[in-house]
């Protein structure tokens, strides 16, 4: 029995909401009395919260590169890649053009003036900067000069739906016809979606060199400064805070997530455990 005073704090990518909730449920079963507080945010925002002094025992982010860029070595010693995913275009059955959109005509469908689409905020959410990377790669892949600029100009301002989960809600309410999401989010929310070619959907390490050509500028950890990010295969990672008060409990959570039970949960939630 764990004393009631023990509260484990987890900050995680919004896309991992259901994964973390399911793992927390299992960990509490194994440790009756344990309290766990979880907070889902855009991963870039989450890493910056730690930098600003907020304390969490466990950090699970949608981009492993954020650990090296913002958290290691001061706040986190080691971090582990535990899942992969791909970017897709989610929509609702009532979205305009939803009966016609395919992997071959998605660009033209989205650029139709009657259709609206959205992405999340690249300064807060990896899904946001990954969407910009997908558009750049699509321009090269399809040989359509100007595609990236056209997509940027036609997209709903990212400030309206800053996190990828906000986009999902906007799809449900009909405020948005199409949104760039992780396939796991679309699966969990039972939203229909269009998959993109693997050469542009950031899913396959075989295309790491091609993805690397995509470049996005985001706010750095120093206010007013920016940092350049290159495209990489999508990898989710988890790390423990160096100053966790409960390192053993925190490690149990990581062991659970990266063990056979965690594998099942990740798969049920549409992620690829690795």
């Amino acid at each position, binding site marked *: 029995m764990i004393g009631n005073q023990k509260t484990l704090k987890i900050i995680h990518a919004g896309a991992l909401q259901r994964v973390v909730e399911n793992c927390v449920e299992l960990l509490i079963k194994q440790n009756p009395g344990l309290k766990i507080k979880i907070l889902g945010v855009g991963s870039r925002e989450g890493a910056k919260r730690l930098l600003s002094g907020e304390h969490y025992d466990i950090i699970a982010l949608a981009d492993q590169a954020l650990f090296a860029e913002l958290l290691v070595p001061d706040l986190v010693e080691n971090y582990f890649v535990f899942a*992969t995913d791909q970017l897709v275009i989610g929509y609702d059955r009532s979205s305009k053009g939803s009966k016609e959109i395919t992997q071959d005509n998605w660009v033209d469908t989205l650029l139709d003036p009657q259709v609206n689409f959205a992405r999340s905020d690249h300064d807060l959410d990896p899904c946001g900067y990954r969407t910009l990377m997908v558009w750049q790669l699509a321009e090269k892949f399809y040989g359509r000069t100007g595609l990236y600029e056209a997509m940027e100009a036609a997209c709903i301002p990212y400030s309206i739906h800053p996190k990828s989960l906000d986009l999902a809600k906007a799809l449900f309410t009909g405020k948005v016809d199409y949104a760039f999401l992780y396939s796991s989010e679309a699966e969990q929310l039972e939203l229909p979606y269009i998959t993109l070619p693997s050469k542009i959907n950031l899913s396959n390490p075989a295309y790491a060199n091609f993805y690397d050509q995509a470049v996005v500028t985001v706010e750095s950890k120093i206010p007013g400064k920016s940092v350049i990010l290159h495209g990489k295969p999508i990898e989710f990672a988890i790390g423990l805070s160096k100053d966790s008060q409960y390192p053993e409990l925190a490690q149990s959570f990581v062991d659970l997530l990266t063990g056979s039970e965690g594998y099942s949960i990740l798969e049920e939630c549409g992620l690829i455990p690795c």
Partner: protein
Amino acid sequence: MDEEMISKFELAIPIDRTIQAELLLLLGQQPSHGYELIQRLNGADFKSGEADPATVYRNLRRMDKDGLIKSHWEVGESGPGRRLYELTPQGLEALKVWTNYLAEQKAKLENFLNTYLHFVKSQLEMDEGRDKP
């Protein structure tokens, strides 16, 4: 792997699972992470088509569970920690079984091609025979 297991294994291997043989071979050459394996697999000259990450990771987990490979988390020195996979003695045996199976498939395909060539040749000879006055 005993004789009975090998026999069961041989019966249970559809050709679309050759990715397991490919992964076993690559892991025999050197222990690797999934990320690196996907890159090596797609660069290998014996691979036809694109190996997608979901298929690779699913097969790695299956083989890990079956004892053909083993894995542990390796802390990254300058990057993220990743699960490192390596071949087990059972995996090496399975690779031999796979190689025998593929050699048999190759022989069967060669037999098919040879039979087909004989068939084409006989067709030509028949046509030529018909054309003669």
